[in-house]
């Protein structure tokens, strides 16, 4: 049937790999070789990107707002830290997965609280959970080291072969590999019927239920998965920095994350990656220019982004590539980025 194969073709349009995407990842990989002196900050960007991708899964796809995503990051971070510190699991990759699972368990448990209520309640409940964990971590300082954090973490080599080095080279490629694998998984998930149903729930939960989608179950599933991602990001943080301190739970971490995702755009997975690059670059730029007052400029950027309108801004950003594509390839120009958030 002609129309049917046509439909199949178009339905797969989004999930097919494109040259641009391949190029994107090649460039990221190339960065690892081109800038051997900037591994730490690039690793930082990768972790942030993974963390942002986690938020994108719930915010960009399912429309769940969260001001407390650091809760899962923190659990992952402490889990990885404790595993390494006490030598429970010495192999980083295995520890990473276990830490992610720990966060995932928390995600599943708290998802029941989060799927209830309106946006504001969600913001506050998620924030509350993160703050609560921070308070707990401070309270049980005999386990967590309290305000001073876990001291003396020493990471064993990855697969027993590749040691973490001071300049963060191993950490960078390790993080990159993890990010890429999890990206592949996320990409697969969001282009599945499950992923599509999340977007439907975000767009219109009433109608989603009316075509037979078990809304709550889907939301719980994605929230749990996102918690896993955030936990992995947190565990990567601990493993690559050998630090786990209370600020992994901090409100600022969750807030920054939101900014990253919004700068990059939600609902297409690359938003977190691009946002992380731009955000860190901006932060780096501003804090180099003015180490004391960089927050002012970050704030200004945010205000401008919102005032101008995220959609319009993305259109402007895409204006030049648009023009190039039009000239070179003679194809239809990019119109807009999907943006309709909770």
């Amino acid at each position, binding site marked *: 049937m002609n129309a049917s194969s046509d439909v199949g073709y178009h*339905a797969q349009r989004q999930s097919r790999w494109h040259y641009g995407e391949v190029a994107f990842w090649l460039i990221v990989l190339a960065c690892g070789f081109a800038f051997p002196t900037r591994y730490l900050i690039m690793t930082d960007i990768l972790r942030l990107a993974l963390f942002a991708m986690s938020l994108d899964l719930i915010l960009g796809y399912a429309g769940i707002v969260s001001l407390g995503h650091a809760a899962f990051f923190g659990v992952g971070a402490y889990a990885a830290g404790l595993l390494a510190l006490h030598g429970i699991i010495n192999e980083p990759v295995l520890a990473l997965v276990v830490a992610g699972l720990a966060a995932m368990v928390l995600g599943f448990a708290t998802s029941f609280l989060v799927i209830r209520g309106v946006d504001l309640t969600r913001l506050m409940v998620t924030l509350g959970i993160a703050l609560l964990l921070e308070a707990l971590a401070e309270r049980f300082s005999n386990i967590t080291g309290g305000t001073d954090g876990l001291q003396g973490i020493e990471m064993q080599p990855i697969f027993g072969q590749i040691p973490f080095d001071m300049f963060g080279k191993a950490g960078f490629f390790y993080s990159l590999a993890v990010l890429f694998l999890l990206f592949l998984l996320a990409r697969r998930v969001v282009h599945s*019927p499950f992923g599509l149903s999340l977007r439907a729930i975000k767009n219109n939960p009433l109608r989603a239920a009316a075509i037979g989608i078990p809304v709550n179950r889907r939301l719980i599933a994605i929230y749990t998965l996102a918690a896993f991602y955030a936990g992995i990001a947190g565990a990567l943080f601990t493993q690559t920095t050998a630090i786990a301190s209370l600020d992994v739970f901090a409100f600022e971490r969750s807030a920054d994350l939101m900014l990253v995702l919004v700068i990059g755009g939600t*609902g297409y997975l690359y938003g977190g990656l691009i946002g992380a690059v731009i955000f860190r670059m901006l932060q780096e730029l501003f804090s180099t220019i003015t180490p004391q007052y960089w927050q002012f400029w970050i704030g200004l950027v945010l205000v401008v982004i919102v005032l101008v309108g995220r959609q319009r801004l993305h259109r402007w950003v895409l204006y030049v590539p648009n023009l190039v594509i039009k000239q070179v390839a003679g194809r239809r120009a990019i119109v807009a980025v999907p943006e309709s958030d909770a």
Partner: protein
Amino acid sequence: MTIALETQNLEKTFGGLRVTRDLSLKIEQGARHALIGPNGAGKTTVINQLTGVLKPNSGRILLEGQDITDLPVHKRVLRGLSRTFQINQLYPDLTPLETIGLAVSERLGHGGDWWRRMGTRNDVNDEIADLLNRFHLLDVMNEQTVTLPYGKQRLLEIAVAIAGKPRVLLLDEPAAGVPESERHDILAVVGALPREVTVLLIEHDMDLVFSFADRISVLVSGALLTEGPPGQVARDPQVKAVYLGEEAVNV
């Protein structure tokens, strides 16, 4: 005749207000049944109870003889009860292709499938293509819903409900708000619904009601006033009174 959808002594109160009063309806298999009544008669409340959005205070709802009173919305859908909304309830960011694809996938039980990509199941694709074709949406299948003309959105609204292969379909004012020029498409599509689907139409537009329905129930103040074939309802003096206001009708 088998009964597709039935309510038994349905009661619903909001605060002290009885909005559904002892309502017992029987809708036969394959019927084209219309539910009419003046403003505030409680039609929407009845729909919401049928679909599971609201819970009745008492009374039962039976779908093909099975009690569905306590089932959540999505489970009723899976049992074959679908609805359209008076005000479009679509996914603004999704395309008609995705919207229908999703509905079909959910029905076939692939909705929770998180590994297989969309568009890789031929049975799903076939069905999507068929629906897009029937509802005149093939040409716009890759447009974002929010950008479609109102009439196309209305068609999509009905197509989504049909994609669930319902055995009973509740149509809530399908032609509401559609410009005159696009109205014809909607009426044609509604008229061409397969006979095996039982349709309950909630409608103000009497032209549409009388051209479509083979049976009409009149709801007043939450209670059933009368029921019968169109001719009989049209002649009913009580109905006349409700609509024209000869006398106040006490129920």
